[in-house]
């Protein structure tokens, strides 16, 4: 991984510098000379030769076969990639997913879903506008497809293959690869839209610290007020959707489009980063999906229909509720939207 950092950081600069490097290559001393000199100083030390064998970027190292890196005789980074992927990422990543599922299962068994403390009023507030829901479900559906197909490609060999056999598993893996490759770019677009749509209400506020200090009242069951999004949701937005979303998108593009003649080393690094980021992403998403479906009563409906009960808003996002009722434009959703205001009025009539 000798040129790794340079490749990643200098990707944009490379095109500019390309014109300047041509004379530099011509001035390169031959490794044969270097090897001869090395034999005088350190007989038996053949490192100049081996550097060429592995690197293939010496202009005097040639081959008739056209293609990317065909002049490389032996590439040793592949073994590093193999060990990282097979022994570290697959093993620890797999157990991380299992552990997260167990933790969520235990939490559900122990605490159960978080229910409303008061009776729903029937008065509804608009929490997510049509566009917000569209973007969310676009990202969510593509994410779930990518997560499932990615997990099959990574762990299927160890989990599915022994059960369903080679032929069927190959068919599923083939389908997974195609879905993963074609849905990937859709998810990248959705990630950008998610960021633009939701960034405003995810900016950190002072009361987020309180929420974090109390753990959101998740374990104690106490009431912790929050804005339109609580600190947990904000953490998911910044670390998951934005941070990991961008990382998996960029590395995904490197892997998805080998027609840009990128070398193996770059793809190996992209693959490892992609796998680690994606596993963390899926692990975090399990928490988000749990809270958004069975974990919190009424949470799923808010994203499904866009509306939440007034009591739900009060109990889960009190600051947002107050702003919404006051018709304050500062927080998204709620009364920020004319439709919401009218819906609220209708609610009050009932």
């Amino acid at each position, binding site marked *: 991984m000798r040129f790794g950092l340079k490749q990643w950081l200098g990707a944009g600069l490379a095109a500019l510098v390309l014109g300047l490097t041509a004379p530099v290559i011509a001035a390169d001393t031959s490794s044969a000379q270097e090897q001869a000199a090395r034999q005088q100083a350190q007989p038996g030390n053949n490192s100049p030769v081996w550097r060429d064998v592995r690197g293939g970027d010496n202009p005097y190292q040639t081959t008739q076969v056209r293609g990317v890196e065909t002049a490389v005789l032996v590439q040793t980074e592949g073994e590093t990639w193999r060990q990282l992927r097979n022994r570290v990422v697959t093993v620890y990543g797999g157990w991380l997913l299992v552990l997260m599922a167990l933790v969520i299962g235990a939490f559900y068994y122990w605490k159960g879903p978080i229910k409303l403390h008061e009776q729903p009023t029937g008065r509804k507030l608009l929490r997510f506008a049509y566009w917000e829901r569209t973007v969310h479900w676009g990202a969510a559906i593509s994410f779930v497809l990518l997560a499932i197909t990615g997990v099959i490609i990574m762990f299927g060999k160890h989990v599915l293959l022994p059960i369903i056999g080679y032929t069927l598993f190959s068919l599923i893996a083939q389908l997974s690869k195609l879905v993963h490759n074609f849905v990937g770019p859709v998810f990248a677009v959705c990630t950008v839209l998610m960021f633009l749509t939701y960034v405003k209400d995810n900016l950190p506020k002072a009361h987020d610290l309180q929420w974090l200090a109390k753990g959101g009242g998740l374990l104690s069951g106490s009431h912790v007020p929050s804005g339109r999004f609580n600190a947990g949701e904000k953490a998911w937005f910044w670390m998951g959707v934005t941070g990991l979303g961008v990382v998996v998108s960029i590395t995904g593009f490197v892997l998805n489009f080998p027609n840009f003649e990128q070398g193996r080393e770059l*793809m190996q690094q992209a693959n490892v980063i992609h796998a680690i980021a994606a596993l963390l992403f899926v692990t975090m998403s399990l928490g988000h999906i749990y809270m958004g479906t069975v974990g919190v009563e009424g949470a799923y409906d808010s994203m499904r229909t866009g509306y939440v009960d007034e009591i739900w808003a009060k109990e889960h996002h009190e600051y947002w509720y107050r702003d919404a009722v006051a018709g304050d434009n500062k927080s998204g959703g709620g009364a920020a939207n004319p439709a919401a205001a009218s819906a609220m009025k209708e609610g009050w009539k009932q």
Partner: protein
Amino acid sequence: MARMKFLCDAERCIECNGCVTACKNEHEVPWGVNRRRVVTLNDGLPGEKSISVACMHCSDAPCMAVCPVDCFYKTSEGVVLHDKDLCIGCGYCFYACPFGAPQFPQDGAFGLRGKMDKCTFCAGGPEQDQSAAEFKKYGRNRLSEGKLPACAEMCSTKALLGGDADVIADIYRTRVLKRGKGSEVWGWGTAYGKPEKGATPPAGAKS
């Protein structure tokens, strides 16, 4: 049972690319696929050396270890083969391989990879020996006809040796002793430096 290996004598290779041509002709490989290539070090300089390289049929094959559908298998002669019916064209074997052996014919826009193709040591694939289906997917199965790989057989200077490891190592040793130089067996440390793994085809590997 013999353990099949390739050995390229860099003192003898004259970069004629006869092995590359022989391979293409023998197996009628698709356009853009090169199962074998010749790399020249210090081209045009003193100390020029050429080495013919293809799949080395490693003892502990990295391609085999990383394949997500486990489509590789190893014959009793140590030849690493794969099942194109199972291959999904992910490219992982190509990332892992030290020798750049796995090749992917393009199967659509944006460099979408088709089924992997690589040197079979002229041993075909999981299909019936010498069948039309086997030839179409993997090329000729010369081993089943009692012949050695076409590239090595065709080599004009006998630089490229392919066959029973003990026999080719003996030939090479004799050469090194006579000429008193050039004892480097290119790629052998990388390919055969680890203990043998996956020597028998996994059950059900042949679909």
